C-alpha cells in the first residue's frame, strides 16, 4: 500500500481552532491551571537499537517528523513497534537513541523539564495523597503556597477536588489516571507525552478521559504526543496520526519506521460515526495489518 504522506508535514494542524497558546513567562500560580507555552518537537533520523545476545536488534529507524506547537499527534502501530521507544526519546528518559530530537529549538535533555510524561499505569506513590502526588509534578523551584494553589486548580480541572486527601488505593483506576494527568500538567509542559494513558481503563471511562484530554488541550494549548493502540482514539483526538511499522517493500531492514502520517479531517469534537473517519479507520487498520472489513 502507498503511504498517504511520508514526508514530515509542517502544515498547521487540521483543527486550527486556536489552541490557547499562552505564555509561560507569567509568574506562577495566579494564572490558570497548566498554562504553558507549547513547543514544537522535531524528530530527525531517530532510531533505536538494543543490544541482544550476539548483536543488536533494531526496533526503530529513520523517523523524521516535525510536530507543530499545540498539535496533537497520535502515534499508532502494532505492539512492539517502538511507539513507546519514540516517546521515551522525546521525554529524555532514554539516552540511547540515534538521530536527534529537538524540543523547541534545543535538543532533548535527560528528564527534560520542558516535557511531562503520562504513563500507561498511573504510577502514583501509594504513600502520598492524590494532592501530594500531583504536587510531585511541580517544578522544583515552586514555592509551597503557589504550588498548593496550582495543585488545587489542576485537581479541579481533572475533577478530583473531592478526592484530594485520599490515597491512590482508595480511588478508582480512572481517577488515578486523572491524577497522573494532573501531575504531568503540574510541570507546565511545553510538550505533554502520553504513553497509552487510557489503555487500561474500561471503555466508558476511556471515552470520558478522551474528552477530558481535549478540554485540557483547549485550555492549555500544550503540544501532545499520544501513543495509543486504539485507532478510534487516535481518530477522535489527533490532528495527525503517525503510523509506525516495518517497511514491507524493504523486508531486509529490520525495525519500524514511519509508514504514514495522516492528517485527520474535521475539527474536534469529531462525529465518531462519520464516513470520512470510517475510511481513514480502514486505511489505518490495513496499515496495522488488520483486515478492516472483518472488524
Amino acid at each position, binding site marked *: 500500500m502507498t503511504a498517504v504522506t511520508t514526508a514530515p508535514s509542517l502544515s498547521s494542524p487540521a483543527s486550527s481552532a486556536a489552541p490557547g497558546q499562552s505564555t509561560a513567562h507569567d509568574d506562577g500560580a495566579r494564572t490558570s491551571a497548566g498554562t504553558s507555552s507549547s513547543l514544537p518537537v522535531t524528530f530527525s533520523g531517530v532510531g533505536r537499537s538494543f543490544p541482544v545476545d550476539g548483536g543488536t536488534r533494531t526496533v526503530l529507524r529513520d523517523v523524521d517528523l516535525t510536530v507543530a506547537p499545540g498539535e496533537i499527534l497520535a502515534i499508532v502501530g502494532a505492539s512492539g513497534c517502538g511507539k513507546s521507544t519514540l516517546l521515551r526519546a522525546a521525554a529524555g*528518559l532514554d539516552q540511547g537513541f540515534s538521530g536527534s530530537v529537538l524540543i523547541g529549538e534545543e535538543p532533548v535533555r535527560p528528564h527534560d523539564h520542558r516535557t511531562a510524561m503520562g504513563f500507561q499505569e498511573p504510577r502514583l*506513590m501509594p504513600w502520598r495523597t492524590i494532592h501530594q502526588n500531583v504536587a*510531585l509534578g511541580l517544578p522544583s523551584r515552586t514555592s509551597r503556597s503557589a504550588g498548593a494553589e496550582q495543585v488545587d486548580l489542576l485537581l479541579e480541572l481533572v475533577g478530583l477536588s473531592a*478526592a484530594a486527601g485520599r490515597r491512590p488505593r482508595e*480511588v478508582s483506576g480512572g481517577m488515578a489516571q486523572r491524577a497522573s494527568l494532573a501531575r504531568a500538567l503540574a510541570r507546565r509542559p511545553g510538550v505533554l507525552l502520553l504513553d497509552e494513558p487510557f489503555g487500561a481503563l474500561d471503555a466508558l471511562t476511556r471515552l470520558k*478521559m478522551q474528552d477530558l484530554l*481535549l478540554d485540557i488541550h483547549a485550555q492549555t494549548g500544550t503540544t501532545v504526543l499520544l501513543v495509543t493502540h486504539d485507532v478510534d482514539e487516535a481518530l477522535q483526538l489527533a490532528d495527525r496520526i503517525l503510523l509506525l511499522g516495518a517497511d514491507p517493500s524493504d523486508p531486509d531492514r529490520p525495525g519500524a519506521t514511519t509508514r504514514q502520517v495522516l492528517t485527520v479531517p474535521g475539527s474536534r469534537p469529531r462525529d465518531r460515526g462519520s464516513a470520512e473517519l470510517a475510511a481513514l479507520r480502514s486505511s489505518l487498520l490495513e496499515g496495522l495489518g488488520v483486515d478492516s472489513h472483518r472488524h
Partner: protein
Amino acid sequence: MTASTAAERTEQTPPPAPARPSGDPARSPLSRPGTRAVVALVVPVLLVVLWWAVTAAGLFSPVQLPSPLSVLEAGTDLAARGELGHHIAISAQRVLLGFLSGGLLGLAVGSLLGLSRWADALLAPVVGALRAVPSLAWVPLLILWLKIGEESKITLIAIGAFFPVFTTVYYALRHVDPHLVEAGRAFGYHGLRLLRTVQLPAVIPAVFSGLRLALAQAWLFLVAAELIASSMGLGFLLTDSQNNGRTDRLILAIILLAVIGKLSDALLGLVERWAVRRWA
C-alpha cells in the same frame, strides 16, 4: 469549555473504601484492643500458676526451681538495695547505644549499596564476607582492641544490630518498583531528592522489620557481651547468680530480659505504625 464542565463529565462516584483485611470489628471480639490485651495475658498467668503449683507441690528443690514468690522477693530485695535499677539501666543504655549506632550504620551502608551500582560492586562481597563471620567471633579482638569497657560491649551490640538492618534495607531498595522510580526521575527527581521522595518511603515497612530484628539481636548480643566480661548489667546478674547459686535471681534476670525486650519491641512497633501512617 470550562474546568467545571470537564470535572462534571468525568466525575464518577468514588468507590467505597476497600475493606480492611483485619475484618469487621463487630464480628471478631479480638479486634477490640481491650479484649486483646486480656486474651494476651491468659497464657502468662496460666504459666505462673503452673510454676507456683509445681514449686508448692515440692517437685523441685528451691535451687532447681524457686517459687514465684521467692523470685519476686529477690527482685524487691535487689531493688531496695538499688542494684536492680542499676543493672537494668546500664543494660538498657548499652542496647540503646549499640542498636542506634549499628542500626544507623546499617541504614547508611544498606542505602549506599542498594542505590549505587558502583558501591554495590565494590563493597557487597566484603560486607557479605563480614556477615558470614559469626558475630561472637569478634569478641576476642574487640577485647584486645577496645579493652573490657563500654566501647567493646557497645561495638559488639552494634555489630549484631548492623546486619539485619543492612540486609533488609539493601534488598528492599533493590526491589523498589522501577516504575515508581522512573516516574520520579521523569519528574526531575534524582539523587537525594529521589531517595527521599520515592525510595525511602517505599522501603519504610522493610526498614522497620529490619530494625525490629536488629533490636532482638541487640538484646542477644548484650547478654553475650555481659556474660563474657562485665561487672554490671542483666547479663552480669546472670553469671553472678549462677556462681553464687542464686537461682531466684537467675530466673529474675531472665524474666526481666523477656519483659524489657518485649517492651522495647512494642515501643518500636508504635514508632513503626506512626512512620507507616506518615510515609507509607
